[in-house]
């Protein structure tokens, strides 16, 4: 018996040969697939040329990309060490240094000495270099004076006593440090040491071959030392620029002007709870809160307000859109309103609102209301009235007619027919679509904000334009992601309750 149900191999091949169309796709079909494949490939090649992608990618500044990305989660401290011709040094920090006005970090070890030097007064470029000692400060107006005085001063020789740095040791991490003393810069990284001679003017000379982490474009010019994630340094003839990178967001709570700056958390907590009033006018708690809100670098209050604007834009815009689309969709559905003219009018109106696009509406309403969330609300409202109206009318056209007929057959008024025969079927779909758009508009509101329609978009865009505030960008992105995820889950939860498990 088994022999008859199980054909031999030869028989199977014979069957296959008799019905080739079942086992092999037709040549037309295969040709079609191949043509689509070739078409897509040709299109990609064309676009590669059209956008000159290869050229742009080759010319991109990928080194900067790494730095920008690192800026998202870390910050640099940048001491500048000026070196005079006699090998003495002065350390200065940028005014906006994250370490505050008088930084004295423990990873910069300085050996100071008081020296008396003889200096030629008009040698302004040299004299103005060591910024740390205050006695040089009055030199600046002197140097700026006219030529006659300068000629006079040329012969004047001054003797001056000042405290200068004679040896500096900067420690990046355990295997990386830079030591500067007597016109020699000694950099150690990963077990290799590079010694460079600096003359205090404009020439740097490396002693021995450069290791892989050091680059110099031309002999005598500056040498760039890159230590990977721990930072980098630039050695010039008269200055060593240190860029030490630390993980984290600097001064996230208190900026350098705050009285709470630089204090450990325990001390801040005890100050707030039981400390003496720093500002006699108000309690320490309100001062601390105020300092956090108006943190100059992070601008928490501003960021939160703008984020709230974005949320409000999406919420109000979607709500109004669904309220207006609700009555109009009954007009557009051909099974509810039998007039073809009214159907077409409503549908083309929806198409118009949709096709003019949120972006164009945003630009127009920014002109009408001025920049701010009102423009964003109106833009979302106009676009989504079109989109929701279209979706609602499609949902109405797909309803089950039996319920409507049942209500009609007992002599209900037209309004009652809609209320009891139609509405219960479509209301969950309507609400679900509105929730879906609320959630997706939270995302779109960010982007139309960037053209001026209010919300966090513009702030985000401005933070990126400067190329130096990537940590603020990261902060805002994190807040946006949190908001989107929270709304995502709220809207998903609501929708699955409305629609049962089969939510779309």
């Amino acid at each position, binding site marked *: 018996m088994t022999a008859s149900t199980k054909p031999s191999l030869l028989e199977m091949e014979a069957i296959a040969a008799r019905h080739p169309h079942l086992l092999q796709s037709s040549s037309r079909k295969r040709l079609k697939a191949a043509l689509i494949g070739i078409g897509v490939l040709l299109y*990609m090649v064309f676009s590669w040329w059209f956008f000159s992608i290869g050229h742009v990618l080759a010319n991109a*500044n990928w080194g900067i990309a790494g730095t920008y990305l690192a800026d998202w989660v870390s910050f640099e401290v940048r001491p500048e060490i000026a070196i005079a011709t006699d090998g003495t040094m002065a350390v200065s920090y940028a005014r906006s240094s994250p370490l505050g006005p008088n930084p004295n970090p423990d990873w910069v070890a300085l050996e100071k000495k008081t020296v008396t030097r003889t200096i030629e007064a008009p040698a302004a470029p040299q004299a103005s270099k060591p910024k740390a000692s205050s006695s040089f400060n009055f030199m600046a107006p002197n140097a700026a004076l006219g030529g006659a005085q300068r000629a006079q001063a040329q012969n004047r020789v001054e003797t001056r006593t000042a405290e200068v740095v004679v040896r500096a040791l900067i420690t990046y991490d355990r295997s990386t440090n830079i030591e500067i003393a007597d016109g020699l810069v000694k950099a150690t990284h990963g077990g290799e040491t590079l010694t460079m001679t600096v003359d205090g003017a404009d020439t740097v000379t490396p002693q021995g071959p450069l290791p892989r982490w050091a680059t110099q474009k031309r002999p005598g010019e500056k040498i760039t030392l890159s230590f990977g994630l721990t930072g980098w340094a630039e050695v010039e003839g008269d200055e060593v620029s240190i860029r030490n990178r630390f993980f984290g967001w600097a001064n996230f709570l208190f900026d350098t002007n705050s009285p709470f700056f630089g204090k450990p958390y325990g001390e801040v907590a005890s100050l707030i709870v039981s400390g003496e009033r720093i500002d006699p006018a108000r309690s320490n708690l309100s001062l601390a809160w105020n300092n956090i809100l108006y943190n100059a670098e992070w601008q928490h209050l501003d960021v939160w307000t703008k984020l709230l604007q974005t949320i409000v834009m999406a919420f109000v815009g979607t709500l109004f859109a669904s309220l207006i689309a609700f009555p109009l969709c009954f007009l557009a559905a051909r099974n509810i309103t039998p007039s073809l003219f009214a159907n077409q009018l409503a549908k083309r109106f929806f198409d118009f609102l949709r096709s003019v*696009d949120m972006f164009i509406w945003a*630009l127009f309403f920014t002109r009408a209301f*001025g920049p701010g969330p009102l423009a964003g609300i109106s833009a979302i409202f106009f676009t989504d009235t079109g989109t929701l109206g279209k979706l609602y009318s499609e949902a109405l056209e797909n309803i089950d007619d039996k319920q409507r007929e049942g209500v009609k057959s007992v002599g209900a008024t037209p309004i009652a027919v809609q209320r009891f025969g139609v509405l219960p079927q479509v209301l969950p779909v309507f609400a679900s679509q509105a929730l879906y758009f609320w959630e997706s508009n939270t995302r779109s509101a*960010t982007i139309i904000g960037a*053209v001026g329609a209010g919300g966090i978009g513009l702030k985000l865009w401005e933070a990126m334009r400067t190329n130096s505030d990537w940590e603020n960008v990261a902060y805002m992105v994190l807040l946006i992601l949190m908001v989107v995820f929270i709304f995502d889950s709220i809207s998903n939860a609501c929708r699955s309750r409305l629609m049962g498990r089969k939510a779309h």
Partner: protein
Amino acid sequence: MATSVLSRQLSESGALVERHWQELNARRRLYTFLGLAFLVLTLSASLWFANDSNAGKFFDRLPHFFDFVGDLVPRDAMEIVRAMFDLPSPYDDGSFKYNYPDGRFYLTDSLYIPEYFHKMLETLNIAIFSTVVGVFFGFILSFLAARNLMPNPWIRGPVRRLMEVLRAFPEVVIAGFFLAILSLGPIPAIAAVSIHTIGALGKLFFEVVENADMKPEEGLRAVGANWIERVWFGIVPQVLPNFTSYFLLRLEINVRASTIIGAVGGGGIGELLRLSIGQGHEAKTIAIVILLFATIFAVDQFSAWLRRRLVGDQAFQLAQ
């Protein structure tokens, strides 16, 4: 008769049923009322906040609501045609307002593409290119994220999280970041739109894959096919129509997205529109708006027609 029904004394269980029903009704009304009150309260608070933080106040600006229409009236109707097709204007005074022929893109010495058509093509091309890139990666990721094809949660979970992050990440930031590295041009826009597309399409795709019929896959497994063969011959033919439908939906959305990204620095027609509205060039603005409107409308209609052919009347839900 009616009075006799109403006045009938209810038994104890009947009264219980009636009371229970009344309680339920009252509670439902209370919840509806509370919900509505909460909604109204949130709405008024939101409106107050929006109005308060806006540059112009709603009621002050309402009379100026249609001011922008005034910005849109050119000196004569032909100006719009001239702006659209880069024809010289009789009002030309050397200013940017009437320099229509300047942006011509010459194919040969005499044959040119008008500036706005050229830029519109560029924007359209950005949209198509990034949708194709997004489909490619979304296609691969979707099979790794589908529960029925990837039982290992250690691969499925991270792939899904990755797609969520790609989807929720603000496009402005991606565009801005690549703008900083690559300098001006369409590539930041392409990067931003395609990265978002990967996340959005990946999610829609893997939901389609999870609803696929597993019988062909089982058959292939029975004859010893490996994972790739099972996916390629068992699942892909089933899901391809739905994938194509979502691809087209995404294309509609991406045409809009690449316009907006263009306005914030990605080039293309979006930037021109923002500039011409900002500088008050009526004819140019109208020409661009007409062009954009026509393009978006055409893409929408084309995609709706093709989708109807591919998957019938279902799958018309817009996904963003």
